[in-house]
C-alpha cells in the first residue's frame, strides 16, 4: 500500500477546481452542503404534504371500481342517450341519481359507447339490466360488457393492500435496524410514508383514477425508493465507521457520503426514469395504450418523489436524529462547508480546527500525517501487515 502514496499525492483540491460543475459531477468531485440546506427540502415537503391533505379533504381520491365495488355496463351504441340510459336504470329499480354515465369514443375505431356505472348490485339484477340495455340498442346481451365488483370485495382488497403495506414497513424497519441502524430505519420509513403521501396527493389533486395497476406501480416505487435510500445509508454507515476514531460532526459524515454517492444516485434515477418515460411517451402517447398510461404515470410520480426523498428527507432526518445522541451532541452545528467539505469528500481527514476536542493520540498522528494517502487516512490506524490482503 505504501507504494501507492506517491502516485496519489496529487489529490488536492487545487487540481480539481478547474473543472466546471458538470465535470465535477462526472468525476465525483462535488462538495454540496446537503445538510446545511436541509430545511429547503423539508419545507418543500411540508408544503406538498399540506397540499395533499387539503386536496384529499376537498376532492378525495378517484378510486376505480375495484376498490369501491359496483357494476359497470359498457353499451356499444351510436344512439342511446345518457338520459335514456338513466331511465332504463330506473325501470329496473336502480336509483340513477348516483349513477355515473359517460360517453366513450374508441381511439382505434372511433366507435361510440356508453359507460354506465352504479353501486353494488346483485348478480341477477346486473344481468337483467344487461339484457335491458342490449334490447334497447338492439344487440345481443353478450355485446354489452359488464364488470362487477362487490363492495365487500372492494373493501377487502383495499384493506389487504394497506395491511401488506404496514407489514412491509414494519419488516423493513426491523431489517434496516438490524443491518444498519434504527435511526436509519426511522428515516427510511418516514421517507417512504412521505413518498406515498405525495403520490396520493398528486392523484387526488389531478383526479387521476386509482386502479390496481396504480397500486402495483406505487409498490414498485416504494421498493425502489427504499433501495435508493439504503444505498445512501450504506455509504453513511461505512463513513461513520471510518471516522469513528476522530470526532467529526454527523453532518459531515452525511455530507461526505451524500457527495460520494451523488453520481450513483443520479445515474440510477436516470436509468430508472428512462424506461418509464419511454412507457409514458412512446407506449401510451404514441402507441396509445391507456393501461400503460396509468401505470407509467404512477411510476413517474413515485420515482421522482422517491429519488427526491432519499436525498432531501431521509438523509437529513438521520443526521438530525443522530445529532441528538451524546456522541455527536457536542459537535452540533459545526459541520464543514465549502473547500473544507470538498477536502473531506475526497478522503481528507478532519481539519485541525477540531483539534481541541480530539482526545486520542492515534488521531493526532493521523492528523499530522499530511503526506499520507487519503485512502489510508480515512481508515483506522494501519493494520498489522500480516492481516492485509496481498497487494
Amino acid at each position, binding site marked *: 500500500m505504501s507504494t*501507492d502514496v506517491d*502516485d*496519489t499525492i*496529487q*489529490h488536492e483540491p487545487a487540481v480539481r477546481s478547474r473543472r466546471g460543475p458538470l465535470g465535477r459531477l462526472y*468525476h*465525483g468531485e462535488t462538495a454540496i452542503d446537503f445538510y446545511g440546506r436541509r430545511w429547503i427540502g423539508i419545507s418543500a415537503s411540508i408544503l406538498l404534504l399540506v397540499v395533499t391533505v387539503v386536496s384529499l379533504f376537498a376532492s378525495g381520491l378517484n378510486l376505480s371500481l375495484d376498490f369501491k365495488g359496483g357494476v359497470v355496463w359498457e353499451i356499444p351504441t351510436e344512439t342511446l342517450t345518457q338520459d335514456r340510459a338513466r331511465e332504463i336504470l330506473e325501470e329496473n329499480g336502480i336509483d340513477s341519481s348516483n349513477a355515473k354515465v359517460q360517453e366513450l369514443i374508441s381511439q*382505434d375505431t372511433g366507435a361510440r359507447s356508453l359507460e354506465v356505472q352504479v353501486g353494488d348490485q346483485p*348478480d341477477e339484477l*346486473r344481468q337483467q339490466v344487461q339484457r335491458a340495455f342490449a334490447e334497447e340498442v338492439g344487440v345481443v346481451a*353478450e355485446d354489452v*360488457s*359488464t364488470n362487477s365488483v*362487490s363492495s365487500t*370485495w372492494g373493501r377487502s*382488497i383495499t384493506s*389487504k*393492500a394497506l*395491511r*401488506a403495506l404496514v*407489514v412491509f414497513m414494519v*419488516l*423493513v424497519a426491523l*431489517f434496516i435496524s438490524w*443491518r444498519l441502524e434504527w435511526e436509519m430505519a426511522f428515516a427510511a420509513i418516514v421517507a417512504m410514508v412521505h413518498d406515498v403521501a405525495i403520490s396520493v396527493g398528486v392523484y387526488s389533486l389531478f383526479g387521476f383514477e386509482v386502479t*390496481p*395497476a396504480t397500486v*402495483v*406501480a406505487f*409498490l*414498485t416505487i416504494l*421498493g425502489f425508493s*427504499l*433501495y435508493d435510500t*439504503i*444505498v445512501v445509508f*450504506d455509504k453513511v454507515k461505512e463513513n461513520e465507521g471510518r471516522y469513528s476514531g476522530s470526532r467529526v460532526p454527523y453532518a459531515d459524515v452525511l455530507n461526505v457520503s451524500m457527495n460520494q454517492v451523488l*453520481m*450513483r444516485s443520479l*445515474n*440510477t434515477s*436516470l*436509468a*430508472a*426514469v*428512462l*424506461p*418509464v418515460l*419511454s*412507457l409514458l411517451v*412512446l*407506449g401510451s402517447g404514441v*402507441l*396509445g*395504450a*391507456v*393501461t*400503460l398510461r396509468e*401505470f*407509467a404515470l404512477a411510476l413517474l410520480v413515485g420515482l421522482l418523489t422517491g429519488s427526491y426523498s432519499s436525498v432531501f428527507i431521509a438523509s437529513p432526518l438521520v443526521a438530525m436524529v443522530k445529532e441528538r445522541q451524546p456522541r455527536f451532541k457536542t459537535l452540533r452545528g459545526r459541520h464543514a462547508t465549502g473547500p473544507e467539505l470538498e477536502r473531506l469528500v475526497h478522503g481528507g481527514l478532519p481539519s485541525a480546527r477540531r483539534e481541541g476536542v480530539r482526545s486520542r493520540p492515534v488521531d493526532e498522528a493521523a492528523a499530522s500525517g499530511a503526506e499520507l494517502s487519503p485512502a489510508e487516512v480515512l481508515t483506522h490506524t494501519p493494520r498489522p501487515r500480516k492481516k492485509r490482503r496481498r497487494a
Partner: protein
Amino acid sequence: MRRRLILTLLSIVVLAYGGFAAVMLTGTEPALGLDLQGGISVTQRVKPGTEYSDASLALAVERIRDRVDSLGVAEPEILSQGDTIVVNLPGVKNQQQAVDLVQVTGRVLLRPVIGDCQEVTPQEPTDSTDVPSDSTTPSSGSTDTTVPAPSTTVAPSTTASTDTTVAPSTTGAPGPSRSITATDTTVPLLGAAPTSVADTTTTAAATTTTADSTTTTTTTSDSTGTTTTTEPPVLDENGIPVQESDPYGQQYLQVKGTNVYCPVGPAWNPDGADPIEGSGEVFTDNAVAAVLDTGWGVTVDLNDGNGGRSTWNEIASACYNQTDQCPSGQLAIELDGIIQSNPSMNEPFFSGGVQISGQFTQAEASALAEVINSGSLPVQLKLEAVQSVSPSLGEGSLRAALLSGLAGVLLVLLFMIAYYRLLGLIVAIGLTVSGTLIYAVVSLLSRTQGLALSLSGIAGIIVSVGVTVDSYVVFFERLKDEVKSGKTMRNSAQRGFTNAWRAIVVADLVSLLGALVLWYLTVGAVRGFAFFLGLSTLTDMLVAYTFTRPTVLLLSRTTWMERRKVMGIEAATAGGTA
C-alpha cells in the same frame, strides 16, 4: 482463483443462453395474462362467517379446474389464496357462461340412481330412435374396455354380518329408465346400458367378492350391445355435456372419469328440508382410503349430529329394499354435477361406520375419501367480482409495452455506454444475461405452474431494469473511487466489488422482503407483480455475483484495462499505473 472466476462466468452464461435456447427450441412461451389477451375474470370468496376446511376449498379449486378444462379454455389461470379463488379465462367472451362455469357449490349430494346408466361416447349423434330398453343382445365385449367398472359396495364397517344374500340388483329395471326418459324431456334418448359402470353392490364386507363378481359379469353381459351411442344427455354449444346439478329433479349425471351417464332422482329430501338432508353432511370428515377385503376402499363414520345417521339409514333402507325412491338399489354420491361413486346398498341399517368397497385403485379411493370429507363441511363460495377485459385493448397494450419497454432499455444502455464506456458494454451483456434468464424461467413456470405474464408483470420487469442497472452503477462507482484513491486496477476491482456487494445485498433483500409480503398478503394483479419483482431481484443478485464480478475481475487483470479510458476515468485523475 482465476480458473474459478472463468468457470463461474461460463456457467452463468451457459445457463442463461442455454436455457433461453432450450425454451426457444421447445417452443415454450410465457402464457399471457388476462389483461394482455382479453377475457373474463371471476373472483369468488368463501362466504364470510361460514365454516370450511382447507381441503374442501382445495377440492373446490380442483373442481373449477376440471370444469374449466372441460370447456377447453386455453391457458386458464386459477389462483387461490386464503379464502379467495380468482379464475381468469382468457379468450372467453360469454360472461354468463364463465360465471356458471366457475360457480361450484362444493355440496355433496346423495341421490338414488333410478335407472340404467348409459355409456355415451362423444360421436356424431346417431338416430336416437332406440328407446332406452333393457339390454338384451349381448354382443361384442367392446364395452368391457370402455366401461371401467370399479364395483363398489357400501357396507357397515362395524358389523361383520356376512350377508350373502346381497345379490347386486344393480342392473336397473327397464321400467324406471324408461320413465326417466319420458318424464325428463331434457334428457335425450339413450341406449340403455345397465350400470356396469360403477356397479354398486351393497354387501357386507366379507362377502363382497362374490357379490362383486356376480355383478360385474351380469352387467357386462347386459351392457354389451346396448351401448348404442347417441348424443350426450344435454349439450352446450361447445359440445360439452352440461353438468349443472339440479338437486330437485331427475337428470342424467356423468360418472367421474367415464363417459357413463346415470339417471338419478332428486337428492334425498323427503321432508323438503332446507338445506337438503341427503347431503355429504351425513358423514363426518374422517373418511380415509383403506385396504378392505376387496382391495382399496373408503371408510367413513356417520355424523351423529344433525340427524345424519337417521337420514343415511332412511336412504340405506330405501335402497336396500329397492323401493320406488331407490329402485336400482344404488346411491349416487354427487359433487357439482358429477357422480363420484354410485355404490349399491348392501345393508339396510348402519350403526356407525360405512365402508365403500370395490375395485378402486388407491388413488381413486383417496379421491373419493377427499370428496366425502369436503362434503361433510362444504365450502360456500360467494361471487365477488366479474370483470371482462377487452382483448383489443390487451393486444394494443402488449405491443406498446414491448416496444416502449425495449426502447427504454436501449436508452438506458446508450446512457451507460456513454458514461462508463467499456464497462457500459458489460452492462449491456449483463442485461441480456438477466433478460434471457428471466425469460427462460417465466416460460418454464408458465408451462409447468400455469403462471401468466400480465401487463403489470411486464412493466415490473421493465422497471426492474432500473434496479439491475443500479447494481452495476453502485459497483462501477465504487470501482472508480478505489482507482482514484490510487489502487491498482486489480485491487480496485476486488475491493470495489466487496463493498458494492454489501450494499447490493442489503438493498435487494429489502426488495425481496417487499415481494414476499406482497405475495402473501395481496391478491390479483398485485400478487403477479410481486412474483416478477422477486424474480428480477433474485436474478439481479445472481447476475451481479456470477456474471459482473468475474467479468470485471478478469478484465482488471488484463493490461488493456489499465488504460483507464475504457471505464470513463481519466488517466490523469487516476494517477500513473501502479
